[in-house]
């Protein structure tokens, strides 16, 4: 019997092939294509397009709106991520704490995760109606004498930014909590017991046992949240007029890119240049995160 057969070592390649093909087709190709487009003046309304070198990028850097969009995106992400990781960590610690023994863990987890299941479109529409000039928030606050007169919240930059931050936090803290709980429970109880016997306090256990061991998950959360944050789009897009109003206060990178794309000519070349900038920015920051939070083994890298 001498049937031709694949050597067992090659099975692995077979298994990863669907992903690799999918990645090349839907991951790498769009990246390369976008990069190519960003050097042209391609629009959707005209058939011909020209290579214009770095002109799109020149225009972008000369454009004050772009720096506004970048600053906004970072501010909106950081303002929701910092409280998010703090509160999620606190919740995760409480719910995994063996001494607190909180009942109904599953139900709590479900409640935390719930906002994430709702459509961003309906959430945005809900908040828009709640806070509109003739809306219920104004009616309640004025009638309860908490506010002298109705305020046009939708026209208030601080209020709208606050709302975007709150909604983003509210939609994603459950996800983060669940990830952190999974990470904490995967730490061997023997380590906690050993620490307890050695006389470590709660703070010390968290600082020297929990934190170092869940670091890979923290890096994952940080990077995925960063990627999501740099692409923040649906809530700020749908909350007001889709142009980042009032006064460009919730104009994010992706809203700006989308505005180029849907302008009356459909400037996809110029839109791509924004996409490329966001890509570069996110990649650099993500690499920085990996570098800063890398595993340190007394200076010696362990061969993987």
């Amino acid at each position, binding site marked *: 019997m001498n049937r031709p057969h694949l050597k067992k070592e090659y099975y692995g390649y077979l298994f990863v092939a669907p992903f690799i093909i999918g990645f090349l087709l839907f991951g790498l190709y769009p990246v390369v294509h976008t990069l190519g487009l960003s050097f042209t003046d391609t629009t959707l309304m005209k058939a011909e397009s020209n290579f214009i070198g770095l002109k799109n990028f020149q225009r972008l850097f000369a454009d004050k709106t772009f720096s506004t969009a970048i600053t906004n995106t970072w501010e909106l992400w950081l303002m929701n991520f910092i409280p998010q990781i703090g509160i999620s960590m606190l919740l995760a610690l409480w719910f995994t704490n063996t001494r607190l023994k909180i009942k109904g863990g599953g139900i709590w987890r479900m409640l935390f995760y719930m906002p994430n299941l709702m459509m961003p479109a309906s959430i945005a529409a809900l908040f828009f109606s709640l806070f509109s000039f*003739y809306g219920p928030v104004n009616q309640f606050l004025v009638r309860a004498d908490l506010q002298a007169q109705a305020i046009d919240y939708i026209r208030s930059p601080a209020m709208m930014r606050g709302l975007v931050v709150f909604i983003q936090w509210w939609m994603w803290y459950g996800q983060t909590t669940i990830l952190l709980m999974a990470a904490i429970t995967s730490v061997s109880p023997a380590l906690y017991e050993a620490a307890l016997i050695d006389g470590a306090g709660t703070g010390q256990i968290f600082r020297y046992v929990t934190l170092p061991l869940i670091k890979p998950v923290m890096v994952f959360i940080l990077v995925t949240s960063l990627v999501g944050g740099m692409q923040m789009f649906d809530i700020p897009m749908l909350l007001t007029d889709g142009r980042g109003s009032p006064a460009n206060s919730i104009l994010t990178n992706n809203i700006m890119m989308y505005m180029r794309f849907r302008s009356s000519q459909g400037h996809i070349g110029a839109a791509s240049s924004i996409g490329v900038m966001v890509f570069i920015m996110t990649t650099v920051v993500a690499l920085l995160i990996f570098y800063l939070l890398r595993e340190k083994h007394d200076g010696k890298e362990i061969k993987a």
Partner: protein
Amino acid sequence: MKRLTVLFSVMLIAAMLLAACATPAPTEAPAAPAEPAAPAEPEAPAATEAPAAEEPAAGKTVLNVWSFTNEIMTMAIAFEGKHPDVDVVYTMIPMTNGEYQTKLMATLGTDAVPDVVALEAAFVKSYVESDFLADLGDLMPITQELKMYPFVYEVGTDPAGVTKAYSYQATPGALFYRRSLAKEYFGTDDPVEIQALLSDMDKYTAAAAVVKEKSGGNTYMVASNGDFMNLFYANREQPWVVDNKLTVDPMVNKMVETVKLFRDNGYEAKATQWQEGWFAGMNDTLTDAEGNPKKIFSYFLPTWGLPYVLAPNATSADGASTTVGDWAVVEGPLPYQWGGTWMGVMKETKNMDLAKEFVRFCTLDEENLTNWATGVYTNEYLKAIDPAVPEGQYQAAGDFVGSQVVVEKIMAGFDESDLSKFLGGQNSYGGFAAAAPSVNARLMQGSDDAIQRALNDPLNSYLEGTITEEEMWTLWKDAVRNEFPDLIIE
């Protein structure tokens, strides 16, 4: 190795990110908030359902039609009635925040492109000026026969004189006011006398002061600043772009001055056009935060505003409050036009003759236009052709059509119509017919919509008092530059 893995995973995540960036999916949010003064034709009442296309039937020629309301679907079904061998596959995508335009633009040059497209006033010019629409010049002789208002085909004609789109409507603007309030504040509700009181902008402003004083501040002259936009934009002398240069006509300055005056003096209710408060004023259920009832004296709306906006919203959702019969219509302080739907054929269509015939039927067919305007297309009528027609699909009488021949024939019939009862016995069609010939499309350009939308946010900040007028113009120019990189802006 480990570093490589890390690098690879970062690349991977980043690539996914960019892949997502590269193809922004058009958002189809039915409830997406719109900025005031979006010169968008609102969705007809039943058009709020999710965009959906029916399944094509077997053995029939399929004609793909895209539109941003479900209006044309009525004509599509009537068309199927005349052509049993044709299946019109109708796709409705709302345009509240530009979803329709985005989706249509993204399909240009692909197989997904429809045969026939509906084009709204806000963006019809950019398509007419592009190479994507087929030449429909051979339908021109019919426009003479039916004495179409020039506006109906001039908008659809490109600078080289090729006509690519036609409309079934003419859309002159008007001013609608509440009869009971007019009697209370001006002692008369007679349209002739009220028109004399409001015949120019200064008189309108003076009347606003009277309304405020006599109502103790509880009645506003107008609901939103968006009401004024089309009024002033239509009366400019120069278009927005002259010799590739952004141009601000004095009328635009006059508009800013007027809306500021109305805001500062409390003549305007601070509602947002196309939003709850704006509609609440139509059925008298507007209440401020303290719970005091507020009233709106007048609305600036065009022909289509009567059957599609005012009439459907004149009764509150619970039926407790209604203003039906309490309205009247006059020309108002300035003549203007607003909106309109044009229809064109995409060049790539595989059914050129059929697509052309569809456009002809919808826009230049005397029988269809008559049926359309006089309420022949009831739900029962449509159900007899296609039993699968949804309940709310029908065309009520009253849309102002683009053919003078049809208008003259049907005008008298409107004396007793529901819409005339809505207007306290006034024949709206007669008023529109008087205004229609003055409507022109001389100033329309493809970039209008984007340039006008860009002014909304800075203007509102200026009205709030958070920025100065100078800052407003700077912000607006920045926003325009953002969308038109090649435009010269001083």
